[in-house]
């Protein structure tokens, strides 16, 4: 161990890092576990769950009586192959459906197409009717039911079609990459704030209240270390740890995004239209540059600093680390509220510069701007300097609190 570090702030920060990184359980539970768990859940479990109805649906049989070839063809495009049966077999198939076999039966009237062609909506006559039998209690119900209705609706609209749309040109003018970035900008800032908060809560309550509980503050204060050096060292050291905790969780999300997107795009064929519209394949972290990530890291670090400072000030009043966690926990609601406020109201919109002087809110907004690639340097500078300035004020308040006699009394 090299204690050549002369600066006492670094010395205190280094002790916090040694405490954190040397504790295998702490590193696993606060740093590695969230990221790995999120990666596993998003990359494997979510696609597995999404794929479940599809796999179950593969075992289902869609029976049909008198199906017109055109509808057969439309259904085949959505992955459904009809099994033709006669009227005589109808009863046994219906019994199977009633017993949750997961099968379907579509009964078309004889000469369905001809009847549809001659049918006049204004005549007041009863329209030709298709009968669809299914059991909504069977596991594969939603999958095939959606596809069949989509296919029939598509056919229904096609027979009344009098013009073409976008046959030679036209189409969606939106930047497809922007759609993906927009989705990332909605989701990731919330997760980042939550992960940083979670990490900060774990390490800060232990470092502040734990120290108070053990009575070590008294031993530290009779050295030449001043309260402001101690406060600054703690905040600096703990901010780095919280920042890494935030990065860990977010890495889990970022790495699992491609797999999650794949499953979103292929897991629900009935949503093909939606996935095409959103262009889900554009949800990738590859579209961000190293500069974007560096700016994001600076915003996150300044955010971690202010979160750690707030938690430290609360934790100092607690008698035990457990009590500190209880006192700090409700704050997560405030953080979620602020990030959700940003998620719902300001996505992609340019807001006035003074919003970037509101701690925490500015972090959520800046993160969103970075992920949307719509950030301006003055907004980022405003965010970072505001957070650091607020952190410095918090550090001063913390040092004043560390001076109080209450710090030496735990009971």
């Amino acid at each position, binding site marked *: 161990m090299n204690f050549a570090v002369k600066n*006492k702030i670094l010395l205190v920060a280094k002790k916090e890092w040694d405490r954190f990184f040397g504790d295998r359980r702490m590193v696993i539970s606060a740093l590695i576990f969230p990221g790995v768990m999120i990666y596993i859940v998003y990359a494997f479990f979510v696609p597995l769950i999404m794929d479940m109805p599809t796999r179950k649906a593969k075992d289902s049989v869609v029976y049909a009586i008198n199906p017109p070839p055109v509808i057969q063809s439309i259904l085949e495009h959505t992955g459904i192959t009809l099994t033709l049966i006669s009227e005589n077999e109808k009863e046994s198939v219906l019994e199977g459906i009633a017993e949750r076999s997961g099968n379907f039966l579509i009964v078309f009237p004889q000469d369905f197409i001809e009847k549809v062609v001659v049918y006049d909506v204004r005549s007041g006559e009863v329209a030709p009717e298709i009968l669809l039998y299914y059991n909504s209690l069977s596991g594969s119900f939603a999958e095939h039911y959606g596809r069949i209705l989509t296919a029939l609706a598509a056919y229904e609209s096609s027979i009344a079609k009098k013009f073409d749309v976008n046959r030679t040109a036209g189409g969606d003018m939106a930047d497809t990459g922007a759609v993906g970035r927009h989705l990332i900008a909605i989701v990731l800032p919330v997760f980042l704030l939550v992960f940083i908060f979670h990490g900060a809560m774990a390490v800060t309550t232990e470092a502040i209240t734990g120290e108070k509980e053990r009575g070590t503050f008294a031993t530290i204060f009779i050295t030449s270390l001043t309260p402001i050096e101690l406060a600054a060292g703690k905040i600096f050291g703990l901010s780095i740890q919280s920042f890494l905790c935030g990065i860990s969780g977010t890495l889990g999300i970022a790495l699992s995004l491609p797999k999650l997107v794949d499953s979103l795009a292929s897991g629900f064929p009935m949503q093909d239209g939606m996935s095409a519209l959103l262009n889900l394949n554009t949800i990738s972290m590859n579209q961000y540059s190293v500069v974007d990530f560096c700016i994001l890291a600076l915003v996150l670090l300044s955010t971690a600093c202010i979160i750690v400072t707030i938690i430290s000030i609360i934790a100092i009043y607690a008698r035990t680390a457990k009590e500190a966690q209880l006192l700090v926990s409700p704050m997560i609601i405030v953080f979620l509220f602020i990030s959700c406020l940003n998620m719902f109201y300001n996505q992609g919109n340019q807001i006035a510069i003074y919003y970037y002087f509101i701690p925490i809110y500015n972090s959520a907004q800046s993160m969103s701007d970075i992920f949307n690639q719509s950030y301006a340097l003055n907004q980022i500078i405003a965010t970072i300097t505001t957070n650091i300035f607020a952190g410095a004020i918090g550090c001063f308040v913390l040092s004043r609190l560390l001076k109080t006699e209450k710090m030496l009394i735990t009971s």
Partner: protein
Amino acid sequence: MLSMSAILSVLNLTKTFRLNRMQRKLANTADTRITAVDNLSFSVNEGEIFGLLGPNGAGKTTTMRIISTLINSDAGDVFVDGSSVKEYPLKVRRKIGFLSGDLKLDEFFTPTYLFDFFSALREVPKAETLERREKLFNHFGVNEYAHKKLAALSSGMKQKVAFIISIVHDPSIIIFDEPTNGMDLLASRTVTEFLLELKKQGKTIILSTHIFSLAEKICDQVGFIINGKLINSGPLNQIAVNNNLEDAFFSIYDSIRDGRIS
């Protein structure tokens, strides 16, 4: 009794604490402040062990904390080797070591790590730290578990480490607040041996305790503190009645309780 050759002098020390509503209710009083230390004066000569004896809540810990510069007094002052704790707290801190019986070092670290950390905070040069660590660890038998985490050590071993850490900077005056608090027999013995060893080295020690046998074994001077006031103080052989400190204390304590002494 104040001495001209004293290395540490406590002069008319007074400290009060504010009581909140809950504390007033618990103490069954309407007073908004409580006097923890009331016009306390004593002095300690170089190389002596002074024992401050009294029941829980008598004001021992508050006195020790004021001497250690951890809290400020409302009135009076303490002079450590001529320096006022109020005016020159940093100067005083360099001369003193402090250990509270309540201290529980972070069990995650090893004795070596903690020694180096506190040496750095005390601004002990690196070479001196290494030399002093080797000397102290050898002397007190800490070497064999120097690189083990505190969590793996017995309470006696942990206490030994805490003692060593309080003297990393080789202070001339050491303040021990209830050093045997909550300890078992073996750990208490470790403390007694440690204090005697420091005395042998010529250190001045101020010790607060409510264990009379410990004071009888090691103290040169003792003082009884009851309700924040120093009732009696002087050389051990003069204070102890028939060589029994406990009897001497309780004869005074009972007199106060019965209203014979105020």
